[in-house]
């Protein structure tokens, strides 16, 4: 039995990074220096990263994904393995023991992991989401303390913003943090916190200014909270439609005391930090949705080239081949979407417009492509013995978390009008 390096079809069209720290070193080694400006070539290092993530995903995630989905068990063995290979926590700066990768490189990895299982990939991605506020707004002490530990052992963290009564409406958060001496006392409830039950620490957004007239940009504060702080009550693991091995919980804070050293930037700076993190975390989510869509496309194509009906392969019937063609269109464009948004932010530009477009589009097409894949499989597609029904269940959340499809449209229209008026 020789090692199977699964070759997945589809042209990998990729934009080449030009100027981030990690990429600058990599870029100089690229053998294809473009002369036409715009470029879709990856650097050799990016190709190697992608190759590693792909191999890991196909060999270690794919075979166990269905079992984790059925049992709902947290996939810690895979997460630990991914951590050992350096496939996690890619944004942590080098001076905290991390690799300081740009968003593009980490999206490359995310797409490959998501191809294997988005439940696993979400658990891993939640680490990046939780860490991002610390990476962009933490001081040296906070970074060394909370990011440093992530590279020393395979720990998880979580992003605690959403509440039972406020998801999209972040300004409507009710969790209160009151200053008492050198500490803040927090009371409130968070909901749908990925890695809620496994986190070593949380990024928490809470309201510090009780005055309802206080503007959103000053009323909230971002904190780092150790998960073993007294008063934190972790709820039950929620049983969701898809990505079932990911750990999602409600967390209650009862008089939880946070030292003032754990405030990010300062009182009132929280909203901006929480939103700023999204520009860097939406491209990876889009990449995850793209990975799922690619998997759905590959599974459906493989099936179409085996199943026969009316005397020929179903792939030879135009109804099916057209369906696959449209699925392919969507996957390629979703990929270009995350690539552009990642490239923009890695080049130091504000990428909100592109990040929202990428996430909105990828989330939508992931659902369409997964549903179409079930269709191609016919009756078999509906059945749990075949891999596509899981993809359809897993895809739905991509239209909801990290900013709903509707919120993305709000953002895109606002950005669009802003550009139009210039």
């Amino acid at each position, binding site marked *: *039995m*020789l*090692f*199977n*390096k*699964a*070759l997945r079809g589809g042209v990998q069209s990729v934009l080449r990074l030009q100027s981030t720290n990690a990429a600058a*070193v*990599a870029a100089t*080694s690229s*053998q294809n220096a473009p002369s036409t400006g715009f470029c879709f070539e990856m650097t*050799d*290092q990016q*190709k*190697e*990263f992608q190759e*590693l993530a792909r*191999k*890991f995903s196909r060999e270690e995630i794919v075979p166990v994904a269905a079992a984790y989905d059925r049992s709902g068990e947290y996939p810690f063995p895979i997460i630990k393995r991914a951590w*050992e*290979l*350096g*496939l996690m926590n*890619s944004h942590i700066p080098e001076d905290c023991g991390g*690799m300081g990768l740009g968003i593009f490189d980490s999206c490359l*990895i995310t797409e490959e992991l998501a191809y294997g299982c988005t439940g696993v990939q979400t658990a891993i991605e939640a680490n990046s989401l939780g860490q991002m506020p610390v990476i962009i707004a933490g001081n040296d002490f906070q970074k060394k303390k909370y990011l440093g530990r992530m590279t020393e052992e395979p720990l998880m963290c979580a992003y605690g913003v959403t509440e039972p009564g406020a998801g999209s409406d972040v300004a409507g958060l009710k969790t209160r943090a009151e200053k008492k001496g050198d500490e803040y006392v927090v009371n409130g409830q968070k909901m749908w916190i990925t890695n809620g039950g496994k986190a070593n620490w949380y990024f928490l957004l809470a309201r510090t200014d009780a005055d309802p007239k206080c503007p959103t940009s000053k009323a909230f504060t971002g904190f780092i909270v150790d998960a073993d702080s007294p008063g934190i009550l972790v709820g039950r693991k929620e049983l969701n439609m898809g990505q079932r091995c990911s750990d999602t919980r409600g967390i209650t804070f009862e008089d939880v005391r946070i030292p003032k050293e754990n405030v990010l930037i300062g009182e009132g700076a929280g909203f901006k930090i929480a939103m700023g993190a999204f520009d860097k975390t939406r491209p990876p989510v889009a990449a995850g949705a793209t990975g799922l869509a690619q998997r759905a496309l590959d599974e459906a194509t493989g099936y179409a080239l085996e199943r026969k009906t009316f005397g020929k392969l179903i792939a030879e019937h135009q109804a099916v081949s057209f369906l696959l063609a449209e699925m392919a269109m969507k996957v390629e464009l979703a990929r270009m979407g995350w690539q552009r948004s990642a490239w923009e932010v890695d080049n130091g530009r504000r990428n909100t417009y592109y990040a929202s477009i990428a996430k909105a589009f990828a989330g939508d097409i992931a659902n369409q492509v997964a549903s179409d894949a079930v269709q191609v499989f016919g009756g078999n597609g509906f059945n749990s013995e075949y891999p596509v029904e899981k993809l359809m269940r897993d895809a739905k959340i991509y239209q909801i978390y990290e900013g709903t499809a509707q919120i993305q449209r709000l953002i895109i229209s606002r950005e669009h009008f802003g550009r139009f008026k210039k």
Partner: protein
Amino acid sequence: MSPASVFVCLSLTLLSDYPVIRVKPDNSGVVTDGVKHSMNPFCEIAVEEAVKLKEKKFIKEVVAVSCGPTQVTETIRTALAMGCDRGIHVEVSGKDYEAMGPLQIAKIFAALAKKEEASLVILGKQAIDDDCNQTGQMTAALLDWPQGTFASEVTIDGEKVKVVREIDGGLETIKISMPAVLTADLRLNTPRYATLPNIMKAKKKKIANMKPADLGVDMVSRVEVLRVDEPPTRLAGVKVETVDDLVAKLKANGTI
């Protein structure tokens, strides 16, 4: 003399499970354009073994070597990411590359091993695209070094190497003196993944470039490929109802 450097000689092959390998229309060979290439699986095992020996401190340095066009530098980089210290790329391209066979490769590896004073040369037992299973043996012969082929276990014992070989009859254990040539078989080890940090570190490792002429190697092939054909299409079988029928049929077509 404790082993100083180990050469791992790598082969870039056609991907093992690529859907369709096609014979060229003129039957002169197999279509390689556009077919994904990667490191030969047995060569991966060879790299893993060399890196393991270095980790156990039996050897000081692992050098990854490969012959071929620019593409092979990717293979060497992967080996560097797995733990080799430096690489050597012997550039062979165009017509020379198409005509390159085990003898030419063995001459190159032998010349390099001598030049760099390697103590061990480890190769994969065979390349999965041509299945020649000759390069390791030829290299040893050209160097007049002992060889331990089809190795499923390698132990360094002072100045000797104990090799357990997988042979048709079972397992054979031999002890050979270094310098020696080893070829890796499937069960020797399970190659590690190159971790992301190691891939990044590998960028700083050096890959030296040279040509066969620099080593005084004559690349002319003494073998001419006359024709390449696909295997004959498999004919449908015939089903029979009873054992008597089976025997009768086999007798009728002269098989028994």
